């Protein structure tokens, strides 16, 4: 069940350093939102606040609200572990568990919730999630091989399968294609377009064409200088951002006249 996300006045810190300041934005369910901006402007930092992965880093903390269908994820009494079961994440570098087989990787999240899953159910989860990640045809004959025996693009799709196997409401992707070749990238972009019908997707990308191709809305983050916090400059429909952005900085960035 895709859910909406509303961020209100979010400040994100690493110890005393404020990495992201004053972000407010809304993310509609069943949409793809692209986060773009120069390196170091806090895209990764921001996206990791949506599944409370930010606080895994020692000394990291957050001020402000992140609402998922109206519920503040940072309210007292909210369990970050539960949050992460609803908000899945795919990382920049493919990270399947090397000690697990392909099938075990796809099942890893399901096993956390349901340790005694029957063999038939397990096979079912493996097949549906790998099919949803467009990987099934390539790996169905070697499900018991290590996850690390796949190519980079296949590994990344395995990670997507692993993330969607637990049926999250929101799927976060931090530069999911940056380590991949153009063909694998296209495969994942197609996949994102398909997954949109079931999930709310947020994707960080450095590739303007990719943002233009896959996303419905685009948010541009920028940073005033080294040591300054990153800020949300503007957010709008992707077509508007790429044709007639309101801010000069956005236009400079997407046309490559940056800095």
């Amino acid at each position, binding site marked *: 069940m895709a859910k909406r996300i509303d961020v209100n006045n979010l400040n994100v810190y690493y110890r005393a350093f404020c990495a992201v300041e004053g972000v407010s934005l809304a993310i509609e369910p069943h949409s793809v939102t692209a986060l773009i901006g120069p390196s170091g402007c806090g895209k990764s930092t921001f996206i990791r606040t949506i599944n409370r*992965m930010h606080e895994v880093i020692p000394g990291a903390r957050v001020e402000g609200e992140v609402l998922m269908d109206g519920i503040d994820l940072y309210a007292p009494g909210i369990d970050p*572990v539960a949050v992460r079961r609803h908000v899945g994440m795919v990382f920049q570098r493919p990270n399947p*568990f*090397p*000690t697990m087989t392909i099938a075990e990787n796809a099942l890893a999240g399901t096993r956390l919730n349901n340790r005694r899953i029957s063999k038939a159910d397990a096979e079912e989860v493996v097949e549906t999630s790998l099919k949803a990640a467009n990987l099934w045809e390539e790996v169905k004959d070697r499900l018991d091989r290590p996850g690390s025996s796949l190519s980079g693009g296949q590994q990344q799709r395995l990670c997507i399968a692993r993330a969607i196997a637990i049926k999250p409401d929101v799927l976060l992707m931090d530069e999911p294609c940056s380590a991949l070749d153009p063909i694998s990238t296209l495969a994942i972009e197609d996949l994102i377009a398909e997954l949109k019908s079931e999930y709310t997707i947020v994707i960080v990308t450095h590739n303007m064409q990719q943002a233009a191709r896959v996303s419905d809305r685009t948010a541009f983050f920028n940073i005033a200088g080294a040591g300054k916090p990153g800020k949300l400059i503007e957010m709008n429909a992707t077509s508007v951002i790429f044709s007639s952005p309101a801010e000069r900085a956005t236009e400079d960035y997407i046309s490559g006249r940056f800095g």
Partner: protein
Amino acid sequence: MTTVAPARSESTGDSLTAARSSLANAFFSRLTAGAASLILVTLAAVATFLLVRAWPAITSSSADLASKVDWLGTASSDTLIATIGYLVFGTLLIGTMALLIGAPISFGIALFISHYAPRRLAATLGYIVDLLAAVPSVIYGLWGGFVLIPKLAPFYGWLNREFGWFPLFAGEASPTGRVALSASIVLAIMILPIITAVTREVFLQTPVLHEEAALAMGATRWEMIRMAVFPFARSGMIGATMLGLGRALGETMAVYMILSPGLSYSFHVLEASSHNTIAANIALKFPEANATGVEALIAMGLALFVITLAVNVLARWVVSRRSEFSGAN
């Protein structure tokens, strides 16, 4: 590395040959190869020494040995081979128990230091563990003999009364506490630091990428550790354990000072005068041994050597069995 500045290519006449660096390269590769073969040579030398010196004792008749060595006899229970059998059993029993007690505690401490403790506390604890590793075994033996055992003896009595139905705690608990379990406990404490130090390093090296993958799926910290840390650290944990076992098997002084020695195939680890280890036995008998006695003791040393080798080969085999899934690729 073979693209060379023009200046040198003139002198050698060949722009693709780096004369000096290839010489250094060859030198160091010889040096490392030499160092590596030195290990093999040492191993072979030790094995040869043990075999050659033990050979007379191994091949001579039990009657002959019994006439020359006062602690050997001709009955089926006190020939050289029988004695070695008891000692191998005692060594393995005490070593294994030490490992069963020590390894889980070490893993726990290592995990606490690497994944649970706040940074400051983790550093202090790590420091203390390293210090413990440097304490000589005689000190552990003294401490075990004077402090630990008197405290443990009453506990053994209780264990024997309440859990006597469990084979290990059956038999007659010794009131002195100078029993196999005491030796194992002190050995466990001795091998704790080395196992902890090695596993802590391995736990710390778990790729953040995999830890975050587990957490992002909604794993609790413990689930993350089982999913990402333990599988990654598995071969390191086995290696550390074997390192500990190697120490426990070969440890002499602590066992010598704690255990009341005896020879039997008894699993009653609370009974005194039932067990001894090879190393402690050699220490016990060596000072008064005549020439033949020394040969008999060297035969025991050979047995210890074989056990240690076997343990290491076994460990390697266990580690390599799933190397495809190790994450090294």
